[in-house]
């Protein structure tokens, strides 16, 4: 994958030139419906998102944010299927040039069929795949299939012995997702986060992004502006919360595109250069 000028690589290079962090906007597909996917992503792009992560709803997640679970349930109740989703993803690909990450549980991928899944990624020209329930021990089969279409499996790391982190990072590509639960002390968390990111950077050239749930706007903003050792931050909870609140309160069919744009702007416009 090294010599390819992928969208993902280009974006991170651009971030480096501009000396800022990438804003990864994350939403669960199928809520309020699949037809809205392109409009929602356009709203996120307009607000200044650098990448978009689209999640396939899954009803039995271990460790998804409550809002993701709620939207997933609604999506499935509204007739979401993976097949329809890939159709919508192809349309989405035509309406945006941003890197698109696809987040799916291995349970879903296996149920749908690995080969069909990979084919869907290829047709929608996906830029990276995130699979939360597929650790190093089990990722061989999917990874080799994704390799054939040059799509990286994004490695996910948590604080662990360095040896293991190294093996995980080497088994994937694109960038590294760092997962670390913020404790009580938010200020101490920023330091821990920077330390951890720096340790990872000593063993890989891949960018390192923070992939945890950030429910509080102010805390998220504080992280974005102070976690200087990470190259990107995922914003999901607040976006999905906004989407749900608006869709539940307004007459259905009216997407809160402006509100979504504003939430992304809240982060993108305040993003100060590093150091």
């Amino acid at each position, binding site marked *: 994958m090294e010599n390819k000028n992928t969208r993902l690589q280009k974006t991170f290079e651009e971030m480096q030139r501009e000396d800022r962090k990438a804003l990864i906007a994350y939403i669960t597909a199928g809520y309020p419906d699949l037809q809205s996917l392109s409009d929602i992503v356009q709203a996120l792009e307009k607000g200044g998102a650098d990448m978009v992560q689209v999640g396939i709803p*899954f*009803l*039995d*997640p*271990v*460790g998804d944010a*409550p809002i993701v*679970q709620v939207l997933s*349930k609604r999506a*499935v109740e509204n007739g979401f*299927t*993976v097949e329809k989703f890939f159709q919508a993803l192809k349309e989405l690909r035509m309406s945006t040039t941003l890197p698109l990450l696809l987040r799916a*549980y*291995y*349970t*879903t*991928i*296996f*149920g*749908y069929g690995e080969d069909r899944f990979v084919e869907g990624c290829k047709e929608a020209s996906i830029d990276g795949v995130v699979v*939360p*329930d*597929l*650790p*190093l*021990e*089990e990722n*061989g*089969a999917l990874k080799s299939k994704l390799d054939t279409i040059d799509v990286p499996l994004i490695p*996910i*790391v*948590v604080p*662990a012995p360095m040896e293991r982190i190294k093996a*995980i990072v080497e088994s994937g590509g694109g960038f590294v997702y760092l*997962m670390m*639960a913020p404790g009580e002390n938010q200020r101490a968390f920023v330091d821990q986060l920077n330390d951890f990111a720096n340790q990872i950077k000593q063993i890989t050239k891949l960018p390192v992004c923070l992939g945890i749930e950030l429910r509080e706007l102010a805390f998220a903003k504080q992280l974005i502006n102070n976690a200087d050792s990470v190259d990107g931050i995922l914003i999901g909870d607040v976006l999905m919360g906004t989407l749900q609140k608006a869709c539940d309160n307004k007459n259905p069919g009216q997407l809160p595109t402006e509100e979504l744009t504003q939430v992304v702007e809240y982060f993108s416009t305040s993003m100060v250069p590093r150091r």
Partner: protein
Amino acid sequence: MITNEKAKFGEFGGQYVPEAVMQALIELEKEFNKARNDQQFIEEYRYYLHDYDGRPTPLYYAENLTKQLGGAKIYLKREDLNHTGAHKINNTLGQALLAKRMGKKRIIAETGAGQHGVATATVAALFGMECEIFMGAEDVQRQRLNVFRMELLGAKVRSVTSGSSTLKDAVNEAIKDWVEHIDNTFYLIGSAVGPHPYPLMVREFQKIIGEEAREQILQKEGRLPDYVLACVGGGSNAIGIFYPFVKDTQVQLIGVEAAGKGLDTNLHAATFNRGTVGIIHGMKTYLLQSPDGEITEPYSVAAGLDYPGVGPEHSYLKDIGRAKYESATDEEALAAFELLSRVEGIIPALESSHALAYAVKLAPKLGKDKIIVVNLSGRGDKDVQQVAKMKGIEEI
């Protein structure tokens, strides 16, 4: 090519879990492997099985039942005589001792109908550990008596409202809690399911059933049985009695799953007879799922059998042809429940009644020289009220 071989039974099992859970599993596997090779640990486990739980459980020749059916000789492995009334305690004692050895002060577990929750709360009380049981909000409502039992034993019952508020959601919440409190918490799984090393560990703590049964039948009959039958929910009582017989290829192993209202309805828990291979709770195994891999709700009159998946070792035994998996309907199980009560004076659990129901079908087809061992996994006291209600008997 099978990857992660040490964690698998053929292609089944494995560890399909988030990285944060892997950290916990790696620690658990390391400690379990140390413990299972430590004579002192094994002796401690055996001590509690004997003095606290009352093992060995008898292998009882059900002469009346045998005569009534007029065919093969039927023996019952009396797991109903365990403390707390079922085989579940073999496993909770083992895992709680491991937790103690690992220095964990808090035990958490999931429970559906409450049987495993009660068995867990029991050992937590015994070893003086803090205990929290995750239970779907629906089940908390349906199983008030077991909720009270757990509380009486000093456990806290956490009502889970995520997802569909049932067992599978309780599992997800328990895993989440485990990852967040890994320093002091041990997650005690109730059946031979979940990510490696759980299916292996639960089998190791349940294989005492088969070891005893094998020895007992050799003593009584001077030979091995022709059939060993057990009901299959997650598969712990079945793997416990099957495992010591796996190498004895002349012994037919038959698991009996819940056919509920019938295999041709949507109301059953017949994982093998109606399911396909997929991923659930961190393992690859047969399960009831939609074409997109979403888990579908199982059903059985026996709460302990309504699990959408099955332990991975059973999937392996099925695929290599070593074990067969049949099914019994609610109706057949209820008939067996009443039959055993009447002819032997033993009220079996509704779960175990499924294995009995299959024996009722099988025995008359066999000669009187054949021997069937049925694992009577639990007693039916817990089910009496439910059965009375189904028979239209109002308040008891």
